[in-house]
């Protein structure tokens, strides 16, 4: 009865709250295109551009096996070079991730509310007033630090480190490690906070201390998800590492940009194919590990 009464009260063509949201999104999309002066027009290639596009995509079907032009004697073959670049790409990503996981783990621990706030689980800061104030400060400071690390993209970090330290391995690794550590810390802290707390509470009821309950009751519950997410981030780090090559670091991106500048499109496709195979291989590998951890 109440439903019928309400139905008759509704005006025809009335826009509900959801309708307003959809309308607002559509309007802001239109407004953005207008403000940007219809950017799609620029996507229509000029005459020369068409030729480049055609040449580039035509090369897709015959990636180069050897170099397209003569190279100095002693240069490793194209395939060897591509594989070496792929290896360097993975090594950069692995170095960055091993820093990021350690930092993310430590920061994630300090950023979790379970540890600082919940007396039933960690509760390091919950019992005594002096500690509570300190706990709040550490927690907030960690959160701010994490946001700072995350909000600057790895490419921007790379620009900063290039300017500061020049083109060396450490600046590439740090450029990836810092934002990744921030992201891992944020996600780790959320996973810790969402983990079921019953075993940690039971351990404290059996006399365990806060740190013990946290490490053996709470952390193991979050660990499978944390591992799975770290594998996923490793995949992302491989792509980031490849892209950093465009700044001159010796990863796949460097080879791609060099070949592209020489208009050696078949070589570009060779490198792209190697990158694709690499990403798929890591995906398969990490997927199988993820299943083992989460199942």
């Amino acid at each position: 009865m109440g439903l019928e009464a309400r139905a008759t009260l509704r005006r025809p063509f009335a826009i509900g709250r959801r309708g307003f949201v959809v309308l607002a999104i559509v309007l802001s999309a239109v407004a953005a295109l207008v403000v940007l002066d219809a950017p799609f027009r620029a996507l229509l290639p000029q005459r020369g551009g068409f030729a480049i596009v055609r040449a580039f995509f035509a090369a897709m079907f015959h990636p180069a096996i050897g170099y397209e032009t003569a190279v100095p004697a002693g240069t490793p073959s194209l395939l060897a070079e591509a594989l070496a670049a792929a290896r360097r790409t993975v090594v950069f990503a692995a170095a960055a991730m091993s820093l990021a996981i350690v930092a993310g783990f430590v920061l994630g621990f300090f950023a979790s509310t379970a540890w600082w706030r919940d007396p039933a689980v960690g509760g390091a800061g919950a019992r005594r007033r002096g500690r509570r104030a300190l706990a709040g400060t550490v927690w907030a400071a960690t959160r701010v630090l994490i946001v700072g690390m995350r909000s600057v993209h790895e490419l921007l970090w790379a620009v900063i480190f290039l300017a500061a330290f020049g083109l060396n391995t450490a600046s590439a690794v740090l450029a990836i490690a810092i934002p990744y550590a921030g992201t891992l810390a944020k996600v780790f802290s959320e996973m810790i906070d969402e983990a079921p707390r019953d075993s940690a509470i039971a351990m404290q009821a059996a006399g365990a201390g806060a740190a013990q309950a946290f490490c053996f009751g709470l952390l193991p519950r979050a660990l499978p998800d944390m591992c799975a997410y770290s594998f996923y981030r490793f995949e992302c780090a491989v792509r980031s590492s490849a892209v950093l090559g465009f700044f001159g670091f010796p990863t796949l991106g460097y080879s791609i940009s060099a070949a592209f500048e020489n208009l050696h499109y078949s070589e570009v496709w060779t490198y792209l194919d190697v990158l694709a195979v690499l990403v798929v291989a890591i995906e398969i590998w990490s997927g199988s590990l993820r299943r083992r951890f989460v199942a």
Partner: protein
Amino acid sequence: MSCAEPDGRTTPVFELDRTSVLYDGHAALADAHLRVERGEAVALVGPSGAGKTTLLRLLCAAVTPTSGRVLVAGQDLEALSQRKLQGLRARIGFVHQDLALVPNLRVSQNVIAGSLGSLGFLRSVRAMLLPSSRELDRASGILERVGIGEKLFQRTDSLSGGQRQRVAIARALYQEPWAILADEPVSSVDPARARDTVALLRDLCAERGLTLIVSLHDLQLAREILPRLVGLRGGRIVFDRSTQAVSEQDFRELYRLEGRGPDGA
């Protein structure tokens, strides 16, 4: 069993003295008196919401009373320091209704986790990650006794509900407790297994001289296995006698359906 054991002759192991627990003004437990002597085996019976869990949680200091006192081994829990309280808790095994095991750890780790309360942090890390053969032997012996010795190194979540229950019991025993509190330990298994589990708890405690307090929804089971029954209803202890002395009238009273407004609470 090297811990400071309570002098069982004179002081009861557990004592509630006019103890009440209020949650949002509603009495989960009202004005309760209870004395449990060392080595006794007691069942708390009554409908759900009667205050059985609250009573058990009071005894291991997981809940603080709103009024009245809780004495464990003659010591008023309120007067104890945090450290003393932790030491006390380390020697009271609690089998939780939902078991509260860590599903993705090995059975051995869940059992050895029973010793966390009596180890420092670094020693507990060692015990959990690299258990000594002595620790493994002890865990294995206890698992053997509860009937799942062969599961020592399996992942806990690969076990059946009944087997997990035994892991929870083994963890409590690994604490070297002088008392075991069990909160509806059989809520998740079929009746035949439930009988076995409660009988196992009683036998384990009897052979080790431990005090056992177990809350049971299943009255029949409690009557069959435990020698003393404490009936709770609406947060009040309505009877407390040896099982033979509990009359059918008592049981009817305990499970009488509500329907005539608040019953004196």
